């Protein structure tokens, strides 16, 4: 039935199931948004991780830093995303709808989430392992990069998955304030819903966001598995 609807030229159908037809009719625009959406979801997480690594390491290294660091990052995460999007330009002196506005706000969220993840990941390294590394002559830096971070990969990767997937949904919110990404589909759906409800773009937005989240999540999962063959080693006895 969906396929019939898609093939039919009567693309004005307002059935929610008509989203595929809607997609075919606006293919290049939708794919462009999907592409930007993907970049906006991934890059802030990467930048966020780079910033969170030293912050997480510091709050692990200096125990007194951990509680305030967790409070501050926790508070950052409670700021509603739409408010943060609107606040970024005046705070940083950018023009409204500057292309950096959304990535900066999303990076803030990623950092907020990942500082705890990095600190807890480093804490997941067994004490014996750290002591052995120190005792056989690893310097602090070498130990961090050759032992602690590799062993913390499973915990950090789990955090990256959460951050990336939640970014996909927050990018969509940025679409509703005018940034060009899949969020636009929701705005279009809303605009076209007067006087009667018109669902296809809204459903298409949801479907593409979910698919994007699934694909990005799988990519991180696969990369993590490749990076941690030791996790799949079957324990003795």
């Amino acid at each position: 039935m969906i396929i019939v609807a898609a093939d039919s030229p009567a693309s004005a159908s307002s059935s929610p199931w008509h989203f595929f037809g809607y997609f075919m009719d606006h293919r290049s625009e939708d794919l462009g948004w999907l592409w930007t959406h993907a970049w906006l979801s991934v890059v802030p997480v990467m930048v966020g991780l780079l910033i969170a690594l030293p912050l997480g390491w510091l709050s692990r290294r200096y125990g007194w830093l951990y509680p305030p660091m967790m409070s501050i990052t926790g508070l950052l995460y409670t700021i509603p995303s739409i408010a943060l999007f609107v606040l970024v330009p005046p705070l940083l002196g950018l023009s409204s709808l500057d292309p950096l506005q959304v990535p900066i706000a999303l990076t803030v969220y990623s950092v907020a989430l990942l500082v705890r993840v990095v600190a807890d990941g480093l804490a997941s390294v067994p004490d014996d392992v750290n002591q052995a590394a120190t005792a056989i002559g690893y310097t602090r830096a070498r130990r961090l990069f050759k032992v602690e971070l590799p062993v913390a990969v499973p915990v950090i990767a789990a955090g990256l998955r959460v951050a990336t997937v939640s970014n996909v949904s927050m990018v969509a919110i940025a679409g509703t304030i005018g940034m060009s990404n899949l969020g636009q589909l929701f705005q279009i759906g809303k605009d076209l819903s007067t006087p009667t409800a018109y669902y296809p773009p809204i459903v298409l937005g949801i479907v593409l966001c979910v698919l994007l989240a699934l694909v990005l999540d799988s990519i991180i999962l696969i990369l993590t598995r490749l990076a941690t063959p030791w996790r799949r080693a079957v324990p003795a006895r």
Partner: protein
Amino acid sequence: MIRFEAASKTYPDGTAAVDALDLVAPSGQITVLVGPSGCGKTTSLRMINRMIDATSGRILLDDQDVAKVEPAELRRGIGYVIQHAGLFPHRTIVDNIASVPVMLGRKKKQARADAMELLERVGLDHKFAHRYPAQLSGGQQQRVGVARAVAADPPVMLMDEPFSAVDPVVREQLQEEFLRLQGELGKTIVFVTHDIDEAIKLGDQVAVLRVGGRLAQMASPAELLSNPVDDFVANFVGRDRGYRALGFEAVGTLPLESEPTVSLASSFDEAAQAAQDGWILVLDEARQPQGWLAVADGPASGSDSINPVNLRRGGTVAAVDGTYRAVLDAALSSPTGRGVVVGRDGTFAGTINATQVVELIESRGVAS
């Protein structure tokens, strides 16, 4: 050689973990630090490689004050084994062993080849080389821990309760192999344990520490057992120390008695005729003792042969060049009171009873 000169570790709250310790760990020997928990033995060990810095006094490693060496640099020249091995979970066994050589700049390929050789030396099959630590048992992991510590061939090794977390049977194997390996390598070893039996078994010399980090006595195991310096050491060393001390002295010539024996293939009648006091010692084809047979138990049902099920196999067997302890134990554990003694090749040599062994021990005391 490692020398502690009035080395102390005092924490900011004033408690002393180690209090003015003077101690020498000679080159090529195993020095064991033993004592109850809180005696500062692990702290003392860690002061050597500066995982803990002494608050006063000095520690010299081959006449070099360790406080003047950069810690990471210092540690690369000192092997270290800890209780749970602390293997790197993300590296294969062979890469775990190669860690220090690779860090010191050796070619990875060469380091791995050396690691394979070491794997064999610590008694592990090559098939373990490409597994991860989680796939090995505790005892196997500990062997890898020892291999990793000796991989760069450091002259000094520090061992912190390395065999405490494995079961008693595996522990004994690891101890035997550790002594064999040390026989080949001749490292300067400082070994920490809370187990006095382990200390006595492994140590060339044993330092007993008391709570508060003070040295109570430093002596050879035999000296410690025969001549504890005070009540603390005496209690710590244990009640049966007189008996255990006999484990350090080899017997001289044993006045062995001849004993009639039969082979497993003999008929029951032959065995019964040869028996002495109703008991006959049964040997196998290679003339190695199998057990005592009581004539009263009778032949195997429905035949006239010896019933192997009836053999009493509980007695220990001592070697002609064994220790007083081994020979006395053979006599005490034998159902006939006659302890079985074998030659170096394991063949039956003769018997000796407890009274004779005790006489030997006493006459030794008079002679010395």
